């Protein structure tokens, strides 16, 4: 084998972390690594068994010959490293997925279309279940506070007083639903109403 497939997975983790993007699930390499573990494990079991045969059963755990010790330790370390790579790779992906769902305000329907082809079947189950448990947790607060809203930056305080020139109706803003009725005056975040200002539905009051 010219290149170590486990390195490919670690490289993918690093690249995905640096660019904050989810890469396609690498089922091929994952399967290869799992097969490698099985093969090494079989060798390990066999070498230990063959070393154990000459030992008389009465003696307390006979020490295998140095050559066997060396090979089996080597096998152990290889297995541990491969398992670790697999776990690092998969947990990294689950963490990425969590972050993406939070950025999509916990909406699986919003998130899935763009990333579905990138997921393993169990990752798909995971993100659906995660959305569910996050929604139940959010329900603890929702009548007063929507904890799904972004916390990336504290509020900047760019507020404007606006008057409604043309009837708008209900608009979803970062701070909740605002019912803009004609003639009404509202204090709103500038970013929430930029379009309505441009389109002439609202005007800034000084």
């Amino acid at each position, binding site marked *: 084998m010219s290149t170590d497939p486990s390195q490919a997975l670690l490289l993918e983790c690093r690249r995905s972390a640096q660019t904050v993007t989810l890469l396609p699930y690498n089922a091929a390499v994952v399967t290869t690594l799992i097969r490698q573990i099985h093969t090494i494990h079989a060798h390990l079991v066999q070498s230990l068994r063959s070393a154990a045969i000459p030992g008389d059963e009465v003696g307390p755990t006979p020490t295998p010959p140095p050559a066997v010790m060396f090979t089996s330790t080597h096998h152990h370390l290889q297995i541990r490293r491969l398992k670790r790579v697999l*776990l690092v790779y*998969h947990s990294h992906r689950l963490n990425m997925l969590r972050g993406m769902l939070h950025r999509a305000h916990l909406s699986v329907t919003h998130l899935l279309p763009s990333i579905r082809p990138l997921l393993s079947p169990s990752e798909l*189950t995971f993100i659906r279940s995660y959305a569910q448990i996050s929604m139940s947790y959010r329900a603890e607060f929702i*009548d*007063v506070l929507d904890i799904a809203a972004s916390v990336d930056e*504290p509020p900047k305080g760019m*507020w404007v007083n606006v008057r409604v020139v043309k009837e708008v109706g209900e608009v979803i803003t970062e*701070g909740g639903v605002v019912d803009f009725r004609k003639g009404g005056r509202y204090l709103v975040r500038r970013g929430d109403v930029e379009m309505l200002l441009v389109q002439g539905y609202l005007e800034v009051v000084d």
Partner: protein
Amino acid sequence: MSDWPTLPGGSWSNGHSHLPSPSPEPAAADADADADADELALDAERADAVTLLVRAWTGERCAPDVRAFEGELVGRIMGYLDAQAKLIGVLKVDGASEEDHEKIGLVQMEMDRVGWLLRSYIATRQEKLIRYAPYINATPAMQTRLSVAEQTLVESYQQIFEESLIRDVVGNLPEELQALDEVLPDGRSMVSQPDLDKAVFIRAKQDCGPVLMPDGSSLEIKKRGIHLISYRVVEQLVLRGEVELT
């Protein structure tokens, strides 16, 4: 919108605190409100709640482990936010004067600010809870620091996390390699734990007694002193409020 004080408050309790106290009368933002002694006391409490929330936020952000959930405080703040939101609704419906608009603006901005602070506090905890879910679930002392809702979150998360790893990884390995909670000979564990020895910045609110350092020496921490020091060494001082994380 349901009335905050009548909500089942059990989930706010972490076993030590009680239901949020009833929210104050929403008579605020009215210039003619009687400025009697009761009201001043109420104001003092309100100022205190936001300051306590700032402290809880800072502590949670700077501490390596999960701290005790401030259930009573969170309940109180939620009650205030709810009352203020209702009050604004009333003022808007009743038609507001120029001065009222000014006040509504300030009240809204403050709700926005305090709401963000509370969300950020909750989000900080949520991230730690998820990171350390298996560790927390295996450590009863940690669970007492969580609200009921947080405990549910941590339990469910560990379940779905492990289910996924079992299906994609360890379930496909030979039986004796399937564990998800091994500790390696070098001391590293598959289960992530908060690093209590992590260095943190503290600011002393008062003169503290000599602090015992890991090498057996002792350290004098004076009022207003700022130190970079292992969290484990000062954890008790932090809990007693003699020093603050910063």
